[in-house]
């Protein structure tokens, strides 16, 4: 919808990047073009293992894994507007569920997934139940605390989690008699996970529940006045995010065959959150971009050695100054 009286500011904003974005959006407004673009993306992704070497596949599988985590955290941070600084805790719950059940009790990998989902939901309720009554800043601090508690519990429950040295010898999953051990197996497994996560995110976003998250994010009191139970709705977002991370954690454990508490440090939570903010909160393509940038940047700039994190930080700062909405553009209406 064009503004009837364009203000100077909005005229200026139309130039350059913004104009390009607008043209991109209008180009992809056509449903057939959009679906063709998706199809090309999927076909290219499926074809990469035929041409790429193990290094490329490893990096891309890692990116896929972070895409799923970002999409999960996006439900919490992007859709519901809750600042969560302890997201790695849920990822840990999934990874440890698979690790413990396969190595101690000999469970089949695929059976550990529903178990991980159940434990993620439980963890979401335990952590979210008392904390989601709090608002913004307080919530961030408490989630930070819970994230650390989860990691420290994993380090100290020696008999179950293997303590600081972690769990080793996690069974490789097999699918129709094929054991998943090569990198391209995991490339495809993670790719399927990404497709599922995108699908679920999209459906949730465009539903009664997704709208309720957005109402609560925009104005908690008004949402409450419209008959929305804000605590329950936030808990729903928290649990959904937990399930994404839990399932991703299962596959992480299977791929690495070893996990230790140090994987789930605060830096992990912060990194995922950074990718979400960088990509553009609340936007699914933004999550894909954010996760790709997060994994690819340090790899591409490997040559400049230890300087690369400094450069990465600088890029981030500049991005936040000139593009606070994230890399993926906001749709204008």
């Amino acid at each position, binding site marked *: *919808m064009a*503004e009837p009286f364009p203000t100077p500011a909005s005229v200026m904003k139309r130039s350059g990047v913004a104009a390009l974005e607008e043209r991109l959006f209008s180009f992809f407004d056509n449903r057939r073009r959009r679906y063709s673009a998706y199809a090309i993306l999927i076909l290219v992704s499926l074809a990469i293992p035929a041409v790429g070497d193990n290094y490329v596949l490893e990096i891309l599988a890692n990116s896929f894994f972070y895409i799923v985590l970002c999409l999960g955290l996006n439900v919490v941070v992007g859709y519901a507007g809750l600042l969560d600084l302890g997201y790695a805790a849920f990822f840990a719950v999934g990874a440890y569920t698979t690790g413990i059940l396969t190595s101690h009790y000999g469970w089949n990998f695929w059976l550990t997934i529903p178990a991980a989902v159940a434990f993620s939901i439980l963890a979401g309720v335990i952590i979210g139940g008392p904390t989601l009554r709090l608002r913004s800043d307080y919530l961030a601090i408490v989630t930070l605390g819970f994230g650390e508690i989860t990691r420290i519990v994993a380090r100290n429950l020696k008999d179950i989690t293997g303590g600081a040295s972690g769990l080793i010898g996690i069974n490789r999953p097999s699918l129709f008699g094929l054991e998943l051990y090569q990198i391209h197996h995991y490339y495809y497994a993670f790719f399927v996970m990404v497709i599922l996560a995108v*699908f*679920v995110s999209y*459906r*949730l976003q*465009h*539903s*009664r*529940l*997704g*709208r*309720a998250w*957005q*109402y609560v994010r*925009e*104005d908690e*009191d*008004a*949402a*409450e*006045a*419209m*008959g*929305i*139970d*804000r605590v329950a709705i936030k808990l*729903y977002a928290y649990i*959904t995010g937990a399930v994404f991370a839990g399932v991703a954690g299962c596959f992480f454990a299977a791929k690495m065959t070893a996990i230790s508490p140090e994987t789930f440090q605060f830096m992990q939570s912060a990194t995922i959150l950074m990718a979400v903010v960088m990509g553009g909160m609340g936007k699914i393509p933004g999550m894909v971009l954010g996760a790709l940038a997060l994994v690819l940047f340090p790899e591409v700039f490997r040559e400049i050695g230890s300087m690369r994190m400094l450069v990465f930080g600088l890029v981030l700062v500049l991005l936040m100054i000139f593009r606070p909405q994230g890399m993926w553009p906001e749709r204008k*209406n």
Partner: protein
Amino acid sequence: MSILQVRDLTLRFGGLEVISRLSLEVDAGGLVSLIGPNGAGKTSVFNCLTGFYRANSGDIAFNGASILKLKPHRITRMGMARTFQNLRLFKNMTVLENVMSGMHCRTRAGALGAILRNPAQRAEEAEIQRVADECLDFVGILEHRDRLAKNLPYGDQRRVEWARALATRPKLLLLDEPAAGLNYDEKERLMGLIRRIRRELNITIFLIEHDMGLVMRISEKVIVIDYGKKIAEGDCTTIQNDPKVIEAYLGKEEE
């Protein structure tokens, strides 16, 4: 029969008594106005009724059931909707999405329904959209349904709020200064709309308003409060001639 019954409602913020032993009744199908000078506690009364403030003592009965200890969303679900004094729209969402929020408490699809899009969920979404469109049409801004709420002129934003409140399918509608910031024409249309809400939708209306002309033209009963206490109650003529009301608004004449 009264749809809303308030008995001895008292609300304190620390040592300050904002509402003291206030009792009032709103008849089903009626149109009652709550007036009073600035700071008299009118909006606090509304916040108590809708569960945003927890009153210290007294009781509020809605349709015969006590709602004193209920959370705001439960009260809305029971059929009491409100608008805010300062607009509280979901600014970055479309007009339609804003109004759809009202149907949230009348529907139930969860995460599984959203992911699977089963027939029940699809039927429910269609129903939400139908009711939202109906409400938008009722307040006369259906043509703006796909615009972002923040891009609408002020008068139309007000109407989005009314449509949103109507979409919760209330029995009682609380309007907090509905005419604030509206021009003469818009006020006339507001009065027409309020009458239609009563007549066509059968909704009881309880409103706070500063525009005395508007209050006197549409109210069946007027309740006046000052310093959290009720100082007068009755029809428009009674109120206009009540010495206590005149004193509260204009001050006392020096002897």
